[in-house]
């Protein structure tokens, strides 16, 4: 509990920093005045630009962290994250496709459909009848599906007018630029529902953790339980993608990093830790993306990519040493 509290405090401090830094730097006093509603430039910056942006980063990160943790626990493999398994790029492709076709469908719905279709495709390709799913096969097939959907997205973008294509490109990298309170409201509502759904998967994960047979003996339908967990995970990832694009590697890193910071193994606190860590990663990545190089604002996805790729390599080498690959 104490560590979770510390993580929460760290996240709040990070958010405060993210609210203060930017093209117009605010002092802590100005931040306080702006937050407490005093009129002025600080209030405007916070209410219109940085407030929704940081809140959106917070929500996206939490959703991605939860999603990654669900999949990693379900498949007992730190590599089983929705971004590596191609689900986020599936959601991304669906959104680009809807853009190209000019469909006026709500973005979260399109993202959810895309994510679910990608997940079904990965499952179908990785599954051999009568055999348990091998997590590594799942990850490799997922990488393949991910490449395929990314290629399809790139192809579709050539059909878009240049301006829209540039938008789509920035968006596909994963960016929190120009998010508004509408995005935040969507995230809050989505997280309220899906967060509760994720919490209700803890009991299922705890049972599945003991092996298929004991789980069934504890009153579970292992197959149905897996599907419920996976659908929750895909929807959480799709929610994040519909707001900030497929930010790479956040879902992959948040779970194991959160567990390390927490130092405990019970699933409920680990879930909270994954959400907090995911939020920290995205808030920090967005802050670095827009405030490290003066006058240049990168998409947050570039930073999570730069952080995540070395992490993935380190993780791969570790798994290889353990003989899991």
């Amino acid at each position, binding site marked *: 509990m104490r560590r979770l509290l510390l993580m929460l405090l760290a996240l709040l401090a990070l958010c405060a920093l993210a609210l203060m830094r930017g093209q117009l730097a605010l002092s802590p006093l100005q931040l306080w005045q702006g937050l407490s509603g005093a009129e002025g430039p600080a209030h405007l910056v916070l209410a219109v630009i940085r407030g929704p942006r940081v809140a959106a980063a917070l929500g996206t990160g939490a959703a991605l962290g939860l999603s990654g943790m669900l999949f990693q626990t379900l498949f007992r493999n730190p590599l089983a994250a929705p971004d590596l398994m191609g689900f986020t790029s599936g959601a991304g492709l669906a959104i680009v496709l809807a853009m190209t076709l000019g469909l006026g469908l709500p973005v979260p719905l399109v993202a959810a459909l895309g994510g679910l279709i990608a997940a079904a495709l990965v499952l179908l390709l990785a599954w051999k009848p009568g055999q348990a799913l091998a997590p590594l096969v799942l990850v490799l097939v997922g990488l393949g599906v991910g490449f395929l959907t990314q290629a399809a997205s790139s192809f579709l973008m050539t059909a878009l007018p240049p301006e829209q294509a540039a938008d789509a490109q920035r968006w596909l990298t994963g960016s929190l630029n120009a998010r508004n309170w509408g995005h935040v409201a969507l995230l809050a509502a989505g997280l309220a529902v899906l967060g509760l759904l994720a919490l209700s998967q803890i*009991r299922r994960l705890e049972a599945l953790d*003991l092996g298929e047979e*004991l789980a069934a*003996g*504890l*009153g*579970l339908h292992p197959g149905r339980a897996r599907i419920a967990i996976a659908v929750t995970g895909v929807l959480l990832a799709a929610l994040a993608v519909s707001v900030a694009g497929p930010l790479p590697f956040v879902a992959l890193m948040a779970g194991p990093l959160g567990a390390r910071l927490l130092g405990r*193994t019970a699933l409920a606190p680990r879930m909270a830790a994954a959400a907090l860590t995911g939020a920290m990663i995205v808030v920090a990545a967005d802050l670095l993306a827009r405030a490290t190089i003066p006058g240049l604002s990168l998409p947050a996805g570039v930073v999570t990519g730069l952080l995540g790729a070395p992490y993935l390599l380190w993780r791969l080498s570790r798994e290889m040493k353990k003989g899991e690959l």
Partner: protein
Amino acid sequence: MLETRDLTLGYDRRPVLERLSLQIPEGRVTAILGPNGCGKSTLLKALARLSAPQAGAVLLAGEPLGQYDSRALARRLAILPQSPVAPEGITVRDLVRRGRIPWRGLLGPWRDSDEAACREALAAVALEDLATRPLAALSGGQRQRAWIALVLAQTPRHLLLDEPTTFLDLVHQIEVLRLLQRLNRDRGLTVVSVLHDLSLAARFSDHLILLGPDGLVAEGAPSAVLTPDTLHAAFGLSALVHPDPVSGTPMVIPC
């Protein structure tokens, strides 16, 4: 009462056991015996609804298992599989707490009754003092007792165990079998386990089910089930059967 009616079990279309009608005596200790591959585990799994029958049914209190809601069934009947998976780093207490899953539902809080059931389960297997230890730090016999505590925390009336003594040395085998017998005597728990050691099974069970390559060979009291004839039919083994000098139960001496 747990019973099978014309039960046929098997993989693909190859039946392993055919038209088996058995009654598991209520409130007694039953052991399922037989050579490898004769369907002992398959039968035990079918008794817990872990595998679906090809034909016939398993009945609990007169109702086919298929009719039970799975959580309701898990509150009445618990099964410990042969090799359950230990979550990394889990403590004994956290392991035992998972036995309450069928009572809690997906978002149910941890109630006093859950705490009481876990405390009692840990006491029954004499692991209260080791509750905060990681499971991995325990000895083989203690670990098996921790797993038994998990299924006891389900507070079932029927407890099924698949080879609970495999991988244990003789002392720990006897310790586990004594524990199961005590749970039966003290709490009236119906215990069914798949066992390998015939003499130990005879000594610690009230009822034996002996399976052979062609299905059921014999069932009943140990002294009626373990005879040179049935052992030959089940295992193709020539053996003498003598009363155990301590308990008087049949002891198998291969010759």
